[in-house]
């Protein structure tokens, strides 16, 4: 393995004084790798990926992203965030801005891209998620699936090297899940490093290089999707898989 693009080294994190959400967590992600993270609720999987762009601070250990260690240096964190796009469960689009303005905001203010070029870039990304015709609308005028595709396009506008997906389809009506997953699958074919928290196991089989199972703040098991689903090693993984695949 060449120099990893993301490294977690004995990372510990607590919420408040007593909830130990990440326990001595070690993880290395190679550039271009596609990882799916699953696990029961409260296992720390969202916290893990939110630590990568420092939406959450860890208290012990080291996290290095794209050669930059995440600590209190605000400038360094902002540099990391430019390299890391994030897609949220609740979309988190800006409701007071049009779809196009949602996409041009960061390039203009963070990337210092001239407005005209930012718009061209935005339209390019909107076309990529097949929603260019909605550019002038406001987010709340779109369906959930459309909103999530806009959110993906927005995260791509800064040309990140890493994309984080935090349960991107959990808040969607069932008939909209596919349109969003299709977009992510397409993205996966293009060499971008991806970490995705999801329980969509079909999706995991189709795109993941590695599936990570987390429980109680630790990585319990990780493997390629074939072995992970067909020959889970630990009891806890088998138990979890039987619950989510058992119906």
């Amino acid at each position, binding site marked *: 393995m060449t120099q990893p693009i993301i490294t977690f080294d004995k990372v510990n994190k607590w919420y408040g004084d007593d909830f130990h959400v990440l326990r001595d967590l070690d993880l290395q992600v190679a550039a271009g790798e596609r990882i799916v993270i699953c696990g029961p609720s409260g296992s720390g999987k969202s916290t893990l990926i939110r630590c990568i762009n420092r939406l959450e601070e860890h208290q012990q250990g080291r996290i290095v992203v794209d050669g930059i260690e995440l600590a209190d240096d605000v400038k360094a964190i902002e540099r990391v965030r430019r390299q890391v796009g994030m897609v*949220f469960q609740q979309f988190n689009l*800006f*409701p007071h801005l*049009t779809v196009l303005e949602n996409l041009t905001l960061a390039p203009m203010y963070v*990337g210092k891209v001239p407005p005209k070029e930012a718009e061209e870039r935005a339209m390019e990304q909107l076309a990529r998620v097949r929603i260019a015709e909605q550019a002038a609308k406001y987010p709340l005028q779109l369906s959930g699936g459309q909103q999530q595709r806009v959110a993906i396009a927005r995260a791509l506008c800064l040309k990140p090297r890493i994309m984080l997906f935090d349960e991107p389809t959990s808040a969607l009506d069932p008939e909209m899940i596919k349109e969003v997953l299709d977009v992510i699958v397409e993205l996966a074919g293009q060499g971008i490093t991806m970490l995705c928290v999801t329980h969509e196991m079909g999706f995991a089989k189709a795109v993941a290089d590695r599936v990570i199972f987390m429980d109680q703040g630790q990585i319990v098991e990780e493997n390629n999707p074939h072995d992970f689903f067909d020959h889970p090693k630990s009891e806890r993984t088998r138990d979890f898989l039987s619950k989510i695949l058992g119906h």
Partner: protein
Amino acid sequence: MAAVFTPIAPRRAPAGTTGPLAWARANLFANPGSTLATAVIALVAVLAFPTVFRWAVSEAVFAPDANACQAARGVGACWGVIAEKWRLIVFGRYPFEAHWRPELATILLLGLVAASGLRAFWKPWLAILWLLVVPAFFVLMAGGWLGLAPVPTDQWGGLPLTVMIATFSIAFAFPLSIAVALGRRSRMPAIRTLCVLYVELIRGVPLVSLLFMASFLFPLFMPVGKSPDVLLRVMVAMTLFAAAYLAETVRGGLQAIPAGQVEAARSLGLTWWQAQRKIVLPQALALVVPGIVNSFIAMFKDTSLVTIVSLYELTGALNIALNSDANWRPFKIEGYIFIALVYFAFCFAMSRYSLWIEKRVSAGKAR
């Protein structure tokens, strides 16, 4: 078997749903309670109307004739007092022959305020306009330049003073309140404590006592003759007072914005300030437009309290104008009704503006 034709009973034509009769049925006589309320209100109106009409119109004196007014006293209103004294009420003790100066200054300032309320005018030149109009306002009012006779601030008064105190207090209180509201949510304990202290201290004190402190107490702590003008001190007091209330309104708006909005902004690499300015504040302020305008209206009316520190804005000017003239002194009620209408015109305009803004803000969000 052949179908048998059975005619159904004829129905009454539907009651009209439009027109004045239908409106009255729906709004005045919809149920017994509503009918009763309508009857009581109508009765009171019918009983009161002749008295009010006699006093305000039929027996009233409209000409500025002091003798006729004295004769009609107790029976009819004396609107002549307005015709006679309106310039003193509107401009206070400002030198009579120079009234065009506060008049022009006030029109300029109100025009500027009106332009600032329209989004279409939010261009760089609006800031330049402020930088031109505000000094022009003070040059016109104070004089001593361009051949204008100097007029000391203790002679400023009436509506120009009301408009000036309200405009500048609002213009400074609004940004200050945003800073304080953000400060109260800061992660830095020192800033947070400072902002909480500020809001709680100012809110815990009546405006009147703040005005007394600004006017009488503050100069005691300054070297003799070095204290800034009383008008400035009073405006600072009004600003600080209003900003404390406004800050809480703004904070309410900030708290209504989901954490995900800031997270999304930060994940895109925006700094904390950029996230507040571009994402949080536009949404938060739009939510609390009614509360903000509420505070603005309250401030406009609170300017009448500066009378107690000897600044004669509209309310104070009315008192001077009538007290100084024995012929007209008895007709204060008419004067108060007049200035009440002036206050109402300004406050009503602000309240309509608030409704208009609300409609525009929600237009883009409709599904």
